[in-house]
């Protein structure tokens, strides 16, 4: 909320400070292209994108936004082409569905002299975007790994649920394994739960059948943690292990706040990073603040002490 107010205050200051001539006549159009809300995290990201757009349109009358959600990479390419052809955008904020198919189309936008902000998933070619805003995937794995190390100082047996096979997942898991190196913690098994509750439930049921002794689970995502918890409860082995999810789903943050033994902590990977990207892109058009470069949002450990500041009860995620 503090950030929002700061931006609003900034908006007022900017509006007062700028001579009306420059700002009011020239309307800048910012296109925002993001994947549709096909899972929990993306749902939260859509919510925060919409919030940011509403807030900025109100704060800066000279800014216009075009928000498009795509359910596959092909649709996203079409969205971006439409924005260029029919809305004559001045800037593009894009969270690429997949890196490779989007690299070409986004590059053409950049070559046409438009401002390009890339969010979360990097493009396959360096140097296209003016601003890169992303979460810290290796950090996500590392913070989780360090917590396991700290909680299981004498070593232990854990299982890992991985996401959809992607670069994001690989970076997280590699950093997690690197953080565990030499700790005596043994990873019994790793399977893909595809960031999906049902898949995670199935995988965890099978892990429980396969391994008689499990000290902890890295579910690596809060949706997967939901399925994992249910499987553990069904097998009646809740006393034996704890679960670390990730990404900061509101229900899980609530459980951390309440001091749930099964869910001791969480690691952030905030869907609101899309809001950071839109706000910074807007700043480019309404202020003199330099915003080009790379902006990496760190993954931090959410503990019962700081959980409150990560709890957004209104967000769908």
């Amino acid at each position, binding site marked *: 909320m503090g950030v929002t107010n700061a931006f609003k205050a900034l908006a007022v200051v900017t509006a007062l400070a700028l001579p009306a001539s420059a700002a009011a006549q020239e309307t800048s159009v910012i296109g925002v292209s993001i994947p549709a*809300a*096909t899972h929990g995290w993306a749902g*939260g990201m859509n919510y925060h994108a919409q919030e940011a757009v509403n807030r900025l349109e109100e704060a800066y009358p000279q800014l216009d936004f075009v928000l498009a959600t795509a359910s596959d990479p092909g649709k996203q390419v079409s969205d971006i082409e439409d924005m260029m052809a029919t809305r004559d955008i001045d800037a593009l904020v894009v969270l690429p569905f997949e890196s490779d198919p989007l690299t070409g189309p986004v590059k053409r936008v950049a070559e046409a002299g438009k401002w390009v902000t890339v969010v979360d998933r990097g493009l396959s070619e360096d140097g296209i975007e003016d601003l890169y805003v992303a979460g810290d995937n290796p950090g996500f794995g590392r913070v989780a790994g360090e917590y396991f190390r700290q909680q299981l100082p004498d070593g232990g047996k854990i299982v890992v649920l*991985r996401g959809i096979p992607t670069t994001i997942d690989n970076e997280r898991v590699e950093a997690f394994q690197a953080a565990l190196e030499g700790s005596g913690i043994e990873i019994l098994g790793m*399977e893909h739960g595809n960031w999906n509750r049902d898949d995670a439930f*199935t995988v965890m049921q099978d892990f429980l*059948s*396969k391994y008689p002794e499990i000290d902890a689970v890295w579910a690596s995502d809060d949706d997967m943690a*939901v399925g994992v918890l249910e499987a553990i409860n069904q097998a009646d082995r809740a006393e034996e292990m704890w679960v670390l999810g990730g990404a900061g789903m509101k229900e899980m943050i609530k459980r951390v706040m309440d001091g749930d033994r099964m869910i001791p902590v969480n690691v952030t990977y905030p869907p609101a990073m899309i809001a950071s990207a839109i706000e910074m892109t807007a700043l480019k058009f309404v202020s003199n603040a330099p915003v080009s470069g790379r902006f990496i949002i760190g993954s931090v450990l959410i503990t019962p002490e700081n959980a409150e500041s990560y709890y957004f009860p209104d967000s*769908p995620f």
Partner: protein
Amino acid sequence: MANATTAGKAAVKNGRPAIDLHVIGPIVALIVLIIIGALMNPNFLSYGNVTNVLARSAFIGIIAVGMTFVITAGGLDLSVGSMAAFIAGLMIIVMNALVPTLGTGWPTILAGMAAALAIGFAAGLFNGLLITQARIEAFIVTLGSMGIFRSLVTWLADGGTLSLNFSVREVYRPVYYDGIFGIAWPIIVFLAIAALGEIVMRHTAFGRHCAAIGSNEQVARYSAVHVDRARLAGYVLLGVLVGVATIMYVPRLGSASSSTGVLWELEAIAAVIIGGTVLKGGFGRVWGTVIGVLILNLIENILNLTDLVSPYLNGAIQGVIIILAVVLQRQKKATR
């Protein structure tokens, strides 16, 4: 059990060699999988694991029984996965809305179940009417409704997840996790529906009409079969069974989101085909579908229980088995 089946089929083999592999192919595949699983991991045949696999199979299984009728009648339904997600979402909304009036006990849950069946009926009717009355290809109609149902549940959930009221869920939970005589409810419901389906397919006019329509629609029409009525009934039956599957699914995790039931339609269709039903219609076998569902779920289970192959390849193994199962059957048919 295994011996008896093989011996019985061997006897048939001498008399009518052509039918042989076509019929026992799926059973043999299932037995081989069970033996592999038992050799790979001692926990494979444990009560817990067997219950897990059977209960998990129930959702797709219940849907696949309905799908067997639709495919036998020469149709197809691609919307069932999205439909399940949509019904689950609406069911949760209905139950949450009824909590203030009906409380958090069984009346709310029964109302939710009734809603699930009614929505399933309506969704099946929607598909069926467009196919039989508007005369649009089943593939196109259900491709369209697949997108519609999926979008609706995403919209209802606001892109996130719909969660059932916590106290209702505690009451409802045993429907998935408990059972009688140690057999979980989803397994009981699945087997009951499969048995009923087998009887309907073999011994009722409706079952024979489905096969007749799938075999040759014109001839069926000349034989005074109410073609449109039977096909419509097939889609409605499938819709209702999707409702039943959802009733068993919702208590498991107590939530529905846009990722619920993704690709269930293809798993159901694959199970039907592995089981020996002909994709073009004209011949259907409900018990084969049950075996097909079990095969698909056992593969996943075995791959999870062992470290045979990289998890990246799970999908490939399933694909190979689906194709193999059908190849075995088709070869035999060609020689018939």
